[in-house]
């Protein structure tokens, strides 16, 4: 047995960890288990206290890559980092990438992760050509948009419930190198944000905003937008790697540090050059340079609260949530607000809905934090929004059921040999 946590470090229970290897037969080991990639989900979907975890990180082989078509086939434990390093110099990039490259392909599929380009490219699952899934019965299911479609749609965003993904074929996107043309533009309230964001989406592939959630005078923030650049020849930037060596007994993120940080960050960036050529790593993965940054939240860990709000309510609901957070004086260094486009979801349980998504980190302040979440949940529910399973550690079951209307359909594909802390909390088994 080994102690295992997820990225939020809210718990560290013992797990019976099995490293999967190529010839593995899941059925042979007894007891319920759940797949574990890089553990970059924040809550409890990759955990199974006192039960089995199937660690996939040694399933890390590439299988084939077609330079002419950009089709990459690999095992599910390959990290996005490794794919970027392999394919970007050859002119191909992941069509969709989340905010960290330390995640496995299997994890990216299982949460159908989104990036900054949802309005143009949808989510990760839209670029998956084929999946090889192993059920705990030993059965292997190969599925895609065309064949065994129902299995494909259940497995993409299926948070590990349908089996263990062994192999993935991905369609990459053609690029001219590692550089992006980017712009940073300040805004001083939500109306301005939506105007700016909507206007940007026509010509910019990537858009994302940082907002100052400590501001009581409206959501001021910075919108960053970018496009893959062409014809730029520059030396690779030197990587500056920092490391947070250990968790302090308390969180460094508190009322004292939040306000000055947010104010400073805002003003520094307002001063910064608006137009820049940025390397993909600094643009897509700004936090990856600080190893173990999750330790700054101290021994008790932290939550990320990420909700998606439908288009018609995107102003009022987000406004109400921000006001609520500012009122109780809690919040995060990095509050992220972005829009989701009107795209047919790739999976039955996919998170993105046409509208907006707000994500904020909160130190684990126990009761206080949970109380805040209840009030945020009420707003999300009212707006018919949903909470992202990749980040969730405590949403109420009813909110889950209302937020994911295709749940019943999805459950037909569940593997009875699989269970996670999250599935027990939200599905009851």
């Amino acid at each position, binding site marked *: *047995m*080994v102690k295992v946590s997820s990225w939020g470090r809210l718990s560290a229970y013992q797990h*019976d*960890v*099995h*490293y999967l*290897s*190529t*010839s593995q037969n899941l059925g042979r080991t007894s007891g319920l288990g759940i797949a574990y990639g890089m553990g970059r989900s924040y809550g409890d979907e990759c955990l199974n206290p006192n039960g089995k975890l199937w660690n996939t990180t*040694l399933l890390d*082989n*590439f*299988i*084939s*890559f077609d*330079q002419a078509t950009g089709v990459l086939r*690999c095992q599910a434990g390959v990290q996005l980092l490794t794919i970027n390093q*392999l394919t970007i110099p050859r002119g191909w990039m992941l069509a969709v990438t989340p905010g960290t490259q330390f995640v496995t392909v299997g994890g990216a599929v299982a949460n159908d992760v989104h990036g900054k380009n949802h309005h143009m490219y949808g989510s990760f699952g839209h670029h998956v050509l084929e999946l090889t899934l192993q059920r705990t019965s030993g059965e292997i299911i190969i599925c895609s948009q065309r064949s065994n479609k129902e299995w494909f749609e259940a497995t993409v965003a299926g948070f590990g419930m349908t089996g263990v993904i062994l192999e993935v074929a991905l369609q990459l996107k053609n690029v001219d190198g590692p550089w992006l043309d980017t712009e940073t533009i300040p805004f001083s309230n939500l109306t301005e944000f939506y105007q700016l964001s909507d206007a940007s989406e026509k010509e910019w592939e990537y858009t994302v905003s940082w907002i100052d959630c400590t501001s009581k005078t409206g959501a001021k923030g910075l919108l960053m937008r970018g496009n893959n650049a062409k014809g730029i020849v520059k030396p690779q930037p030197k990587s500056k790697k920092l490391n947070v060596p250990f968790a302090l007994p308390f969180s460094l993120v508190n009322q004292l540090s939040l306000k000055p940080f947010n104010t400073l960050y805002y003003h520094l960036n307002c001063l910064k050059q608006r137009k820049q050529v940025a390397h993909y790593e600094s643009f897509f993965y700004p936090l990856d340079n600080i190893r173990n940054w999750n330790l700054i939240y101290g021994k008790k860990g932290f939550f990320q609260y990420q909700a998606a709000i439908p288009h018609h309510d995107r102003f009022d609901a987000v406004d109400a949530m921000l006001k609520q957070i500012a009122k109780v004086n809690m919040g995060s260094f990095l509050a992220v607000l972005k829009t989701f486009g009107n795209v047919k979801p790739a999976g039955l349980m996919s998170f993105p809905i046409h509208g907006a998504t707000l994500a904020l980190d909160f130190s684990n302040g126990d009761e206080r934090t949970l109380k805040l979440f209840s009030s945020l949940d009420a707003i999300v529910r009212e707006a018919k929004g949903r909470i992202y399973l990749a980040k969730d550690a405590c949403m109420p079951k009813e909110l889950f059921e209302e937020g994911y209307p295709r749940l019943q359909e999805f459950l037909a594909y569940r593997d009875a040999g699989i269970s996670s802390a999250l599935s027990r909390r939200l599905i009851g088994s």
Partner: protein
Amino acid sequence: MAKMKKIVVIGGTSGIAHACMRIWNQNAVEITLVVRDKDKGQLIADDLRVRNPNSIIDILETNFLDAKRVLSTVQTVESAGAPDIVLIAHGSLPDQQKCEENLDEAQAALVINGVSPVLFAEAFAKGMLKRDYGQLAVIGSVAGDRGRKSNYVYGSAKGLVARYVQGMQHRLAATNVKIVLIKPGPTLSPMTHHLASQGAKGLASPEEVADVIVNGMEKGKTVIYAPKKWKLIMLIIMHIPDFIFKKINI
């Protein structure tokens, strides 16, 4: 164009060897994987080919336990071109208790970890000596440095390898053929999955270990501990007096 380096890996599906090959493969190289199971070898070969399409990767299936097959395998490899580097990586971690209970288990463990690597090394040394060129690397283990109750069958086979390499270094001293003994500490690989599951802490990553191995080989070292800290740890362990050692439960 300069001739590509030719590398032969015996036990080409080993996790540690695979990590070494990923480093060598950053430049175009020719690699021959000698394996017992071709399908498993194929997976490694594909990975290396995707990572560097300019490399040439071959797979050769053989029996590792039969001296005649070892010799014919080495002849087949050599007839396709003389290797610059041969990495002998195969091995298998036995259950010590089963070895104590069952001589067949003990024999199998001694042969795959001790006799077989030596036979491969001996067969390759012949060709290398003829050409007066080449580097042989054999993976032993820190477990071969001092016998201990929980692991001495495996340890003694690894000790055999160590003594063999020492003798070979003597024999090769006046030549341009080099032989190096690699002694990994506990490393996360298919061999040790089950230990990791039992909560074994401090398993090194194969990448970290491979980095030390490849660097050490480039520098022409004769003994490589990987990770490096094991050199000091084993120095201490080897010097613990017997009367104390016997009281330690390792």
